[in-house]
């Protein structure tokens, strides 16, 4: 491999290595009770990274899953977790609970 290609890869790696912490991320809460999400619809600011704190009040695990949000996260029973999403363009982003997909459904609305 030529030195030029190696330098190109090296610079790409340095760029990928850059980390910036999320500061002052707005936080929103969602609860899981009886295999339902509360609130089922949550409005959040668009074009802003946000933190979702999800409380699972049930004794069984649930999985927050959304292809539209590119997120998938298991929340064990009687515990909580944090999911970072966005910045989102204005629109609606459905999600569901993979353990109870018929009842556990919701959407994030970015405005």
């Amino acid at each position, binding site marked *: *491999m030529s*030195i030029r290609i*190696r*330098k190109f*890869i*090296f610079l*790409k*790696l*340095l760029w*990928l*290595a*850059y*980390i*910036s*912490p*999320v500061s002052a991320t707005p936080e929103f809460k969602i609860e899981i009770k009886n295999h339902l999400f509360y609130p089922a619809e949550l409005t959040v600011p668009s074009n802003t*990274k946000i933190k979702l704190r999800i409380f699972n009040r049930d004794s069984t*695990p649930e*999985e927050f899953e959304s*292809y539209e949000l*590119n*997120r*998938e*996260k*298991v929340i*064990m029973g009687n515990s909580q977790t*944090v*999911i*970072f*999403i*966005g910045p989102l*363009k204005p629109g609606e982003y459905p999600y569901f609970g*993979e*353990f109870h*997909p018929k009842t556990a459904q919701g959407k994030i609305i970015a405005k």
Partner: protein
Amino acid sequence: MQKTNNYLRAIASNIIVLVIFSANLLLTSNAIADGITIDKVYHPYVQPLERELEFRWLNYDDDKSSNNQAYRLGLGKSFATNWFAEAYIIGEKNNINNDSTISAYELEAIWQLTEQGEYSADWGLLFEIERQTDQSIWEGSTTLLIEREWGRTIGTANLTLGVEAGSDIDSELETAAAMQVRYRYSRALEPALELYVSSSTLGLGPVLMGENRFGNRKKLHWEFGIIAGLSDKTPNATLRALAEYEF
């Protein structure tokens, strides 16, 4: 505090692996790796309660590799909120004489370091150890897994530092990189472009992947790609396929 710890862990592992890997990649002019490093691109995420059965297949179109096909069967399970382990049986098949052999066993573990989306990139580490069946050769490696999201486009990099040891081989360090740019078109179909680089491999090619769901946490993830060799040491074309059944 958790966020700060994750941040510091990510930075520390990043610096160590990147410095070693980059120095080796930039300064080493002699080929030190033995095999073709086209395989798959790992992602830095782990799900609790995850179990999977995995099959991978590679086919090389010419005789630059000693065997023309390689395949592996793995069974994996997460054993903590941010750790996942998988055991593999690795086989090879020579297309000329049709000889198939089980060539190695491998254990791997993925450690998710940061929450997805928490920082500008997501970080994880992959640890692998492999034992050849017919020779006294051990291979161990650590891979830094980095993923970054730009809307529907996802960029992933795997940076590997490995070592080979045993009575049948001279100990040596190996480095490799695998990179993937993927467009999240739909759950069923995502196109991607993958690049594989090591001292014995330079390959680039398109990959298609998708996911089919079968209800209650059962799903099949599949990948199929054609990686073109861009150096004399790399096969002209490598077909790669993968199927992961999560249950």
